[in-house]
């Protein structure tokens, strides 16, 4: 797959269809991959990488890249195409400057999941029929892929590219029976005290690094509300549990109705806080209350959070789930 992408990228660069290409650059380690822009074919040939660790969603970088002169090509996995459409809906991407290459994806590996299984010193990875062969400095290991995939990939919601100019590999289908709301339902069943304790346990680890905000394709305001010194949550280290709660509630709230559930927030969190559970709660709520809505499914959709109806609608005070004490 890596060579296929690389040759296609080289071809497009050399024949002048595009001026630059947004992809993944190899880092010091095989799992340490950085999204980057390649303009030089030689550089692309030498440093471009695509493997099971390339989880980064490249669509957000297009906000800056597509605003520049010339055409940029980008590799988008199925879930990334939803973010791309959503950003087009919000007029953040200049669509005419982008050449979208859709790429097939079966799931991306979380390096932390590998480490938890005691696999360290990773030097290479390849997938073979549902299992992963991992080369380490201690020898080769084989693990079932499903067990070490990132959470979002284990509960993959769609393998269908909702937008592309060209496709490498096959196009999949929307996964109807994914279990992504299971954990949200489990939390809803708990009592308020249990839920409070669960979230305190998770959110109290927050170090306010802002990685979740910076990586999120929906979170792309040029001037963020949290950069306001008067927001009360500007501090690097939260001074009080309230700040953690406030930051995460507002962060999730600001992307409600625009979040495509790409799972980047949870992937980048250095403290492994399951932030996607907050986003999924909003998705589950508006699906239940206002009808099914998939952010980024097509360009120009109106989100139920920004929309309203003059007919009967859910009343704020009637929303109560689980125990109250």
């Amino acid at each position, binding site marked *: 797959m890596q060579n296929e992408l690389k040759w296609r990228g080289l071809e497009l660069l050399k024949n002048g269809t595009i001026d630059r290409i947004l992809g993944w650059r190899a880092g010091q380690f095989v799992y340490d991959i950085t999204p980057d822009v390649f303009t030089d074919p030689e550089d692309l040939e030498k440093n471009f990488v695509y493997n099971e660790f390339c989880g980064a969603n490249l669509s957000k970088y297009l906000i800056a890249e597509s605003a520049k002169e010339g055409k940029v090509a980008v590799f988008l996995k199925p879930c990334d195409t939803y973010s791309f459409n959503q950003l087009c809906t919000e007029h953040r991407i200049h669509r005419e400057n982008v050449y979208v290459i859709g790429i097939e994806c079966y799931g991306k590996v979380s390096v932390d999941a590998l480490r938890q299984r005691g696999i360290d010193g990773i030097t290479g990875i390849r997938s073979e029929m549902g299992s992963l062969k991992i080369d380490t400095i201690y020898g080769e290991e084989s693990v079932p892929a499903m067990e070490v995939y990132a959470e979002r990939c284990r509960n993959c919601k769609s393998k269908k590219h909702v937008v592309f100019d060209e496709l490498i590999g096959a196009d999949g289908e929307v996964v109807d029976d994914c279990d992504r709301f299971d954990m949200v339902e489990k939390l809803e069943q708990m009592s308020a005290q249990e*839920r409070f304790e669960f979230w305190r346990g998770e959110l109290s680890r927050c170090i306010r690094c802002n990685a979740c905000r910076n990586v999120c394709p929906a979170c792309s305001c040029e001037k963020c509300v949290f950069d306001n010194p008067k*927001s009360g949550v500007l501090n690097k280290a939260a001074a009080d549990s*309230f700040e953690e709660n406030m930051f995460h509630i507002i962060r999730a709230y600001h992307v409600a109705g625009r979040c495509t559930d790409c799972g980047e927030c949870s992937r980048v969190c250095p403290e492994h806080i399951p932030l996607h559970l907050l986003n999924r709660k909003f998705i589950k*709520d508006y699906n239940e209350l206002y009808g099914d809505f998939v952010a980024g499914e097509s360009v120009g959709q109106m989100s139920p959070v920004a*929309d309203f109806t003059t007919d009967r609608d859910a*009343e704020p005070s009637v929303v109560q789930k689980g125990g109250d004490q």
Partner: protein
Amino acid sequence: MQMNDKEWKPKIIAFCCNWCSYSGADLAGTNRLSYPAEVKIIRVPCSCRVNPMFILRAFQQGADGVILCGCHPGDCHYSTGNYHTRRRMTLLFSMLNYLGVESARTRVEWVSAAEGARFVSVMDGFVADITRLGPNRRLEDLRCKTN
């Protein structure tokens, strides 16, 4: 924190829209109807002026309950403001509930300018609910506590 339960009185913030609920509260006053003194009213031009951050900020500053009052759906002075409020607050309250903040601490009520008596009964009911729940401990900022 030393606090006698008998002395404890809840702090309640009521965001009232200028056109209906605030006038409703005014009508209650001119009719000599009394509502609990624990309720502190903040006047807003429209219920949809209330940013979710305002609600959180109220809790941070020591509120034990926050109630948002607006015109009845269909009666908004700005035509559609309260429809937006309805959706926003539904999602916000559901999220607060999901994080373990008791859902009885947050409420949206529609009170028109003619409903002075209703304003009083809504506030009486809300204050009674919050008094039963006790002080807000799950969304508090200790630095903002005075006692």
